[in-house]
């Protein structure tokens, strides 16, 4: 069942890829001089080998344009000057998953520094979101150079906004606790910044950390979080060949790996706390902030070198829930923006129509066995979309009002208690 993930650098001699008895395929991450340039998965019979000759044919067929393009890009690159790089705060929001968190923190500490300059400082904050025990606090306490903050209000965007208040760096990079950053993660982010100092948001490539279960393989085969291997810069209110831009905010990137100019993010009002609240609305907050960045007229940059590896859901049930939450989060975002951004209403209506049409078409294909995803996954996403559209955002807004009220009364009670004790 599992697929080994093999990293190949075309500048090195090609390895022999051997598939063991219980493996049924291979996933290949192709790099050139450390930069990721392609990723693909291939089903293979167990107990076989892929010799370098066959591999080289595969590589040149798949990645010829990319390989030559990288060569040309190197040649056209003006000599690089030394940059004064921005200071960086890395914020990791977590909840009761210390074993994942420690893996993520270690990878952040092991990331390479760019050779074209050094950031004036890099700080790492862990935001512990409504923890049920002290494990995360104890863990972070044992790691030098990592700051611990607790955010009692449950909800990812409460945690992210807390990070926004706590951070001091010019750039603020968010990571989910279930990712591991690539060794060139920091180089990628800083390169994106040197090339686009005017950008307000940066997003990066997300590849699988492991492909060990059916659910993980299925998810990655269906596209995963990948957004391609080209640098992209989104700016302005139109995009040729995409009439639904910028409302279809899924193209911009994923919340598991994103960074912002901190001051601009504060100016934009931070994250919408009614999205990404965990159950029952786990998602949509990243789409919302990307959309607002673009609508405010700022550039958003996607940089493939700014790469993390995400541990996908292992169980089919959890995966189904993830698709459901994608539909839900996306439509909650659409519902919110439909109300908050009147000039784009007609576009959002078209987007809703397009989305349902597209998903239904996909469902049809899936029923005929033409797609990777089985019909029940697509149905879950569709169902999530329907729920999301039927006022999920306003329900969620009421819920977080309630959460805020509880916490306010909690604090008030505490204050009163203090005064009383005195």
């Amino acid at each position, binding site marked *: 069942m599992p697929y080994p993930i093999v990293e190949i650098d*075309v*500048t090195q001699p090609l390895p022999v890829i051997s598939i063991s008895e219980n493996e049924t395929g291979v996933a290949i991450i192709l790099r050139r001089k450390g930069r990721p340039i392609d990723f693909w998965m291939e089903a293979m019979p167990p107990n076989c080998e892929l010799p370098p000759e066959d591999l*080289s*044919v595969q*590589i*040149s*067929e798949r990645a*010829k*344009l990319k*390989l*030559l*393009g990288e*060569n*040309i*890009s*190197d*040649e*056209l*690159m*003006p000599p690089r000057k030394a940059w004064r790089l921005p200071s960086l705060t890395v914020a990791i929001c977590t909840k009761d998953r210390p074993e994942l968190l420690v893996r993520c923190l270690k990878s952040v500490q092991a990331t390479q520094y760019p050779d074209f300059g050094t950031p004036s400082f890099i700080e790492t904050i862990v935001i512990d979101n409504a923890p049920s025990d002290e494990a995360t606090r104890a863990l972070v306490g044992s790691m030098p150079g990592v700051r611990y903050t607790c955010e009692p209000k449950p909800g990812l965007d409460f945690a992210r906004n807390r990070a926004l208040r706590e951070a001091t760096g010019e750039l603020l990079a968010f990571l989910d606790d279930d990712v591991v950053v690539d060794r060139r993660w920091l180089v990628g982010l800083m390169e994106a910044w040197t*090339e*686009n100092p*005017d950008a307000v948001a940066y997003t990066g490539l997300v590849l699988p950390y492991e492909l060990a279960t059916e659910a993980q393989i299925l998810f990655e085969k269906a596209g995963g979080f990948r957004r391609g291997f*080209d*640098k992209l*810069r989104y*700016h*302005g*209110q*139109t*995009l*040729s060949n995409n009439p639904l831009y910028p409302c279809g905010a899924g193209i911009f990137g994923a919340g598991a790996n994103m960074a912002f100019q901190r001051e601009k993010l504060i100016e934009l009002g931070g994250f919408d706390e009614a999205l990404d609240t965990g159950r029952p609305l786990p998602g949509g907050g990243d789409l919302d902030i990307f959309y607002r960045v673009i609508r405010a007229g700022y550039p958003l940059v996607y940089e493939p070198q700014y790469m993390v590896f995400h541990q996908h859901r292992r169980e089919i049930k959890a995966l189904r829930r993830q698709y459901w939450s994608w539909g839900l989060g996306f439509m909650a975002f659409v519902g919110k923006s439909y109300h908050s951004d009147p000039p784009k209403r007609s576009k959002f209506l078209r987007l809703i129509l397009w989305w349902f049409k597209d998903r239904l078409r996909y469902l049809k294909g899936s029923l005929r066995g033409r797609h990777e995803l089985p019909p029940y996954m697509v149905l879950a996403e569709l169902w999530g979309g329907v729920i999301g559209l039927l006022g999920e955002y306003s329900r969620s807004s009421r819920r977080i009002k309630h959460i805020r009220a509880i916490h306010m009364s909690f604090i008030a009670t505490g204050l009163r208690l203090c005064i009383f004790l005195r």
Partner: protein
Amino acid sequence: MFAPWKIVHIELSQGIPELPFYYGIQGACVVFWWHGIPLGEQKIQVDHLPMPAFQLRQLATKAITPAVGDHLVNHGFKARLPMPPSIRLFDKPPDLQTLMALDQPLRRLRRHLSQPRDGLPCLSVSVVVCTRDRPEHLVLCLRSLEKLSERPYEILVIDNAPTSDATRCLVSETPEVRYILEPRPGLSIARNKGIENSSADVIAFTDDDVMVHPDWITRLRQSFQSPAVMAVTGLVLPAELETEAQFLFQQGNEPSKWGYRALTFDSDFFELMKSRGVPVWRIGAGANMAFRRKIFDIVGDFDERLGAGAAGCSEDSELWYRVLAQGWLCRYEPTAVVYHYHRKELSDLEHQIYHYMRGHMAALLIQFDKYRHWGNLYRAFGVLPWYYTKLFRKSLRNLMPGPKSQAGTLGAQIRGCLAGVKYYLQNRSCSSRFGASADKADWSEQEYISK
């Protein structure tokens, strides 16, 4: 409201600048060059301007990679001949070692293109410009011909049935240009007069509403390297995209149609496409084409029933048809560049499209008449009606006001087709020099559309 597109030429060897903001345009159409070789283009919408240099570099890299690969690597980067996707042509992927060894590909490309070619026959070139009462255009064309980096053997201006002597006066000011009067109207007639009066090995044709690139002659001449190549066409870039008509005209000529990679049309291509109508119109444009002189002795000269002033156009493609049918090669060579001023008025455009289709239809019938290749009739009476029905249905669905698309000129296209049939029937009696060689037709083939 239509806003113009700005055409920006960027010479990559001089470094990549920031693309500035231009007021009052819809976007910029950027053409990327490397030491005078066009390698690719990219359209950029105005709200992406000003565009930082690094991002332009990004776009440039993406746009030029296929063409650079085509120049430097033997296989794997070839452009696809205009064929329906159902015909699979296997282009072997490039060797990975070769690809990895290509450091500094652009510098290599320059060396590759500037080295003297051994065994290149020293061909002389005559330039023939046909014109009719447009001295204000012609003067720009002649000025660009003066700037050619390599002098042609001769330059002829064929004045086609003029109403005044303005062209004669203009040409008399430039001593190295010969003036020839052709009183009978018709572009084919004028071009044939040019063939008659020229004496070089290669005859290069261009139009009066065109400006040529300084290396035009050099690149055309180089493309005749192989002795089997009888006809060469080149890249036609728009000189300006100021009006809606010019923009719409250009949309029909996107790089997908005439790209930045060379194409060789051979008899294999001809045989594969014969049963569905060989898309000879995709070989190039009459504004930028050249022929070996001897091909006119082999296949004859331009058919006087076709071309502007007669059926409308397609006199060029019909000649290429004959070249391919007799087993010779046509080559599309994008390094030979001219800039064309498209018609400015929408009414002109409609008129032009009408004549295009009229000429196209007549050419299909003439090609059938000469060779009995049934694919021509299949296209004329099977593919085109089917295509127009589809377009009509589509235009019914999009009745909302918006930018005019191809469906906007649907009426003109259909009227043109009908007129083409009528024109052919009226002029059938003209002697055709080529005998009937009946071919087996394959009517069951899948439809093929691309005009």
